[in-house]
């Protein structure tokens, strides 16, 4: 399963549908302060099933919905889709019957989040399990958030030990 694209609509500052292609090797993301780079990272963690609004810098999960600017009104819906090439059919059995996999999460004001895999409604836990089976996930060591290095440095030894648990 090769993840190869991330599509955002109405997610934080990415109000218009935006697609980031995730190709092989090293992809750099650059730009001035506040332009949206970390928002991209959070979109990926969000579609992987991140449950803590605080870890996405919000007080509630609806804080990820585009909240408008001086010149545009807020939106009521945010959606992120993570697409993958599954031509080698390495996906978990229940999602392994197509060459392409799309995992999507959508949130609507006052209606919470809805998850889908290849168009089928699934529970959040199914999405989290899917990514865990890929050695991936919103909280895996593979997702190094801005400031997380500082947190590890300053963490209490007991909290730091928890980082090992992913390898166990």
């Amino acid at each position: 399963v090769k993840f190869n694209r991330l599509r955002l609509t109405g997610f934080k500052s990415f109000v218009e549908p935006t697609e980031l292609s995730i190709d092989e090797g090293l992809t750099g993301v650059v730009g001035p302060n506040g332009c949206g780079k970390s928002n991209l990272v959070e979109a990926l963690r969000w579609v992987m099933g991140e449950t803590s609004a605080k870890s996405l810098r919000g007080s509630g999960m609806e804080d990820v919905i585009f909240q408008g600017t001086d010149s545009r009104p807020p939106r009521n819906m945010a959606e992120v889709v993570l697409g993958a090439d599954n031509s080698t059919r390495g996906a978990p059995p229940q999602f392994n019957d197509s060459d392409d996999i799309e995992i999507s999460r959508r949130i609507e004001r006052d209606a919470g989040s809805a998850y889908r895999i290849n168009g089928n409604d699934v529970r959040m836990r199914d999405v989290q399990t899917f990514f865990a089976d890929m050695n991936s996930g919103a909280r895996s060591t593979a997702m190094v958030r801005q400031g997380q290095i500082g947190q590890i440095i300053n963490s209490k030894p007991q909290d730091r030990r928890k980082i090992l648990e992913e390898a166990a």
Partner: protein
Amino acid sequence: GRERLLAAFDTVSANFERLFTQLFGGGMAQLRLVESEDPLEAGLEIFARPPGKRLQSMSLLSGGEQALTALSLIFAVFLVNPAPVCVLDEVDAPLDDANVERFCDLVHSIRKETGTRFLIITHHALTMSRMDRLFGVTMAERGISQLVSIDLNQAEELAAAG
């Protein structure tokens, strides 16, 4: 439970020691489980000896040295079960140019080893120059983000803007 954590500790420790020496171009470091006989209750302490210096608790190292040491730990765990995508958000912020080069060398070697696709957010011109491709995020309209593909030569200009 306990056995698995101790086995994980051994594997992660071996990775950690190797990665530290790779990132620092020398020296050594070690992980220690402390404060409890029970690994499920223990604390994880880190001791490091950059090249030419004395072994110290990680807390006495410089900001940049601590960042490299923490990165060694993160990748040490990562390598036990490599993920298909790895995202690094401005982890090179406290590094000087020499350390940025070694950081990029390490990421390239991990990519060779695991086939992982890396998404690296950075303000460092040197890191940008080591990427296979670059995307810029702009806010031409205030508060609205847009993604653009950047020519690797154009990168210098965008580094100047951010």
